[in-house]
């Protein structure tokens, strides 16, 4: 799907996306010449169709996580499907106590994957610490609002 500013004959560029959690999806595109913005609003069926292909409108900002589709889309996942990491998340990205606490609220079926995505997000931006505020930003930027 591409958006063309007819007046300028320029392809509009992806600006922002919103996943409000009701199954729908919104993406904003802007003409680089006249700066006119257009929002693409997708219904739940359209949203899911794109999601099920494992692609992201606007391009991927972090690589696809292992079993991302299964873990993000299966609703009957078992809590003990994956070995729980025993230690506090460490590595290049340090997690604040508050961030760890918040991560622990994520269902264990997707927790490992979500942690990996947040780590990738911070590493990409050269950020050393994961905080609840950064998690909020990542959720918005990566379109993880419904996870």
């Amino acid at each position, binding site marked *: 799907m591409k958006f063309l500013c*007819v007046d300028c004959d320029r392809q509009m560029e*992806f600006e922002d996306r919103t996943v409000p959690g009701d199954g729908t999806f919104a993406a904003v595109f802007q003409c680089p010449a006249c700066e006119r913005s257009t929002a693409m609003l997708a219904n739940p069926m359209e949203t*899911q169709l794109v999601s*099920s292909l494992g*692609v992201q409108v606007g391009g991927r900002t972090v690589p696809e996580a292992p079993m991302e*589709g*299964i873990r993000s889309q299966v609703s009957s*996942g078992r809590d003990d499907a994956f*070995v729980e990491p025993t230690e506090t998340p460490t590595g290049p990205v340090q997690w604040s106590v508050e961030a760890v606490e918040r991560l622990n609220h994520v269902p264990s079926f997707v927790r490992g994957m979500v942690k990996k995505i947040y780590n990738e997000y911070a590493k990409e931006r050269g950020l050393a610490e994961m905080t609840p505020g950064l998690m909020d930003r990542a959720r918005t930027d990566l379109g993880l609002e419904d996870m």
Partner: protein
Amino acid sequence: MQIRTYHEVQEHESNLPDQMAEQQVRVDARLASVGNVIGVMSGKGGVGKSLVSALLAAGLSKHGLRVGVIDADLNGPSMPRFLGLESCPLEETDDGTLPAVTKGGLRVISMSLLIEEDKALTWREPIDAGFVWRGAQERRALREFISDVAWGELDVLFVDLPPGTGRLAELHGLVPGMLGTITVTIPSVASQDAVARSLHFSEQRGLHVLGLVENLSGLYEGQAGSELAREFSIPLLGQIPFSPELAVAADDGSVEDWLDTEESLQAEIHGLVGAVADICKKSATKLAMHEGTVGEQQVQATQGSRERAKRFYDRQMREDLSSVMVKLIAEQEMVFVATADADGNCDCSPRFGTPGFVITLDEKTLAYPEYRGNGVFASLGNIIENPHIGLVFVDFFRTTVGLHVNGTAVLHPTDKLPIALSTYIEEEGHKVDSKVEQWVVITVDEAYIHCAKHVPRMTKKDKRIKWGTDDLKAKEDNFFLERKGAHEIPVR
């Protein structure tokens, strides 16, 4: 107002086609360390396909092969139960998700390891609208089972497919170079009907069917296994009678242990496992052979196409003829024949005949007749000096695919034919023209597809052909000679 259309506008940030292509790259990268991918399928449910998969996997593992199993029956997974893996948390690593491993060393992934016990597989989807994308979700799950599981080095990866052909099509789309399928039936007529449909589907997709397994042999009156094998010219790899002990072993997760018992079925199972082990080992030998010539490798290095070429060697090249190749050859009326003399001077010449004039004697042997020609014998003369031969069949009229067959050739006068050919002529003599003067018998070294994308589809027009005639008008052998009025090509 003129508006540029989709393909006239450059891809931008989203670039969904590239994102999809990247997914395929991950699949290919993962399978680079996997020797063979084999689908276990059936057109019919309830034939014991998953149990056959478990037996084959466990049996091959005991043969010393490194084996993985994907339980691709997402909605009815049973592999972990058969292999004693029902509760087995998976570990995540930087390389992907580690598969569950049985005590015998089988590596397994299954939806039953991921979803709640006693719950159906359900997706996050609005009620009554899931049909829109469920197929895409399931294909994505299959892709992730292949690409996102850290399989490591494997000799064979079995994919236990659900009944029907839908998931097989998805698997073949993701792994076009899969070795082939093993098809499971039971003796009943209903199963025979359903499995025949799935075998026709495999034929249409150009999928190699490695063989048939008849499960529950003797439990019904039919002989679906042997009849299907005959109808589709594929090997019947094994027939497994019903065994209460095996059924119990499957239920309590001890299939691997059962293979070590002295149960009466052992001969049948070991025969089946041995046949599949031979197929895998043969394929491994074939892969090792297809590294390309020195010249090919040099050009590939210059052009940076070594990996692409390797994928082609691994996935497309065979050292024998598949059933689909045999079928294509049987339909052709023309073949291009390339030969070279002892010094490498080449000649390329077409040969023609009625459909099937090139005969497949077995999966490694072809034969074609030589009729009276211009008396030069360019091809046959070359073959006497240098037996290497290259054939290209092109199906211009139906599929538009081509088939390369390279091998070595031997000439045989009609009174000194190899037994297989003389037997064929005795049985099918009505198909062989009496004007044949010699036969060329070819041992196949390699066979591979010439893809259809640039081959034109043609329509055949009527033309009366007199085989072996010396009629000058029919031969038109002065066509290119200087002569009056020879400026236009006469159309026959």
